[in-house]
């Protein structure tokens, strides 16, 4: 009996995963090249970084994690925010609701697509920044792990904003209003230790801080701090996804 149950639940987990992957492939095909993604996901972080780094001497151990964290934040959250708001507006989201797919699977599928986008951008950025600055990543595997977990956290953040907003401009503007201050207090340009006490406290409440810290740890010889950063990021992923499921269910039931 227990075996049958475990087989059945194993099958249903496999079926749900397979549907999530289908949703992710579809999202990648439709949304990766949307102008809004290029604008909010790539151009804004590029301009922000250039405006703060040009003419300044920045060491590679500050430059690479900061740049990668910012690109991941904007890239992963934008795909999620844009795909879900467009689908709600065009009513294609209803196509997913009509199908035998749970909201959790839909959200997971969408977060796979947006996280993959953030991961790809982050890897390209890390390689480019390392080549240009001559920096060296001591532990590439842990660096990649931090990129993956961070991208999932930011995609869940995008999902939550998209689930709560009534349309795409509202989701993007409110998300940008959160993302920009996160950059300044998350250790992208200024090390956390150099921040005033109050800002330092706030910075510990944002996922970007932990991702950048984990990336910096992976650039050197990682300490226990890397595990702590990763654990906090995973908590962010679970909490943000769970809240997004609740909010999306509430806002898409009529």
């Amino acid at each position, binding site marked *: 009996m227990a075996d049958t149950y475990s087989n059945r639940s194993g099958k249903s987990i496999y079926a749900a995963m397979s549907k999530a992957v289908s949703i992710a492939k579809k999202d990648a095909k439709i949304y990766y090249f949307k102008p809004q993604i290029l604008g909010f996901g790539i151009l804004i972080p590029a301009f922000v970084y250039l405006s703060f780094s040009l003419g300044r001497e920045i060491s590679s151990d500050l430059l690479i994690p900061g740049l990668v964290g910012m690109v991941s934040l904007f890239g992963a959250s934008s795909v999620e925010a844009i795909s879900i708001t467009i689908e709600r507006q065009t*009513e294609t989201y209803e*196509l997913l609701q009509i199908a035998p797919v749970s909201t959790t699977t839909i959200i997971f599928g969408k977060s796979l697509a947006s996280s993959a986008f953030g991961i790809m951008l982050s890897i390209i950025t890390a390689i480019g920044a390392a080549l240009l600055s001559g920096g060296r990543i001591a532990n590439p595997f842990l660096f990649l792990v931090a990129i993956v977990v961070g991208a999932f956290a930011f995609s869940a953040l995008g999902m939550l904003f998209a689930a709560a907003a009534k349309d795409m401009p509202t989701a993007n503007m409110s998300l940008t209003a959160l993302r920009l201050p996160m950059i300044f207090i998350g250790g992208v340009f200024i090390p956390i230790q150099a921040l005033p006490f109050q800002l330092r406290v706030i910075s510990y409440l944002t996922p970007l801080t932990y991702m950048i810290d984990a990336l910096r740890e992976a650039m050197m010889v990682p300490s226990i701090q890397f595990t702590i950063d990763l654990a906090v990021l995973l908590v962010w992923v679970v909490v943000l996804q769970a809240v997004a499921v609740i909010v999306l269910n509430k806002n898409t039931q009529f």
Partner: protein
Amino acid sequence: MENAIEVTDLTKHYSNVTAVDGVTFGVARGEFYGLLGPNGAGKTTTIRMLTGLTEPSSGTAKVAGRDCTREALAVKQRIGVVSEVSNLYNEMSAWDNLMFIGELYGVNKLTRETRAKQLLEAFQLHDRRNDHLLGYSKGMKRRVRIAAALLHRPEVLFLDEPTSGLDVQSSRLIRSIIGELNGEGVTVFLTTHYIDEADQLCDRIAIIRQGKIVVESSPEKLKTSLQGERVVEVAFDRDALNLENLLRSRLDIRDIAKRGTKYEMHVSDAGNTIAEVAQLARQNGLKIVSLNTKEPSLEDVFVRYTGLDAVQVERMEFLRAVKGGDQHG
């Protein structure tokens, strides 16, 4: 045998509004069931509850033997749903849309490719299967949407205004394929504003008004339910001043409407009405060009039970046709 759809005391409240109010009905397996009603009567809310998109405030609904609230995913696996809007991905081709939807229903690759080919051929879209939907007309998109709803071979098919605003060719093709499917044993639940469509396709019809089912029967029985009522149509060689009021004052008529050059009157005594019309024509120097009597139509039944008059129904259908006219993109 258990019904394909079993609804008991289904109710949905939205803050202060009751959209569906204690509705109870059953649809047998293989039956073609129509739900008619004016805008805002509760048709779409009923469909949304039956398809697991909206949770009822109270009452129960079972589709294909599963509870729509507690076993929503199991219900969704067994049904096909075509909503009023053609909500497919315009950035993808018809083929890719069907493949994606097939994956969501767990249809294996070989089966979904075989079925997609068959369906696109049946809906006369196979030649355009690789074109993005952005370039499709509304009728073509709706055909793809219905094909998508059929890919996993549903036991019950829900159609919400499937031919609304479509060109004649698409509408006829859709009706014909839906009719064939029903003939093969698929249970069909249809909501439509096109009364003729319901008359032509449905085994049974329910009329819903203000969230309540006011009558339910076969189209023929509904028509005969207006017992003793006849429709007299008369056209004169010219229009006289206040002719409608004159007819209304002289005759015992329940309802009168001018349709083109004809006056359509709903009466209880057709013979007496004809005699009176002839006399009225003589007295006013009018010549009768045509005079017909006929049985009440399903539209007359709809008018009677919804409280809308025939002109309102016509206006409603005209506005819907204009608003939803065939368009690209």
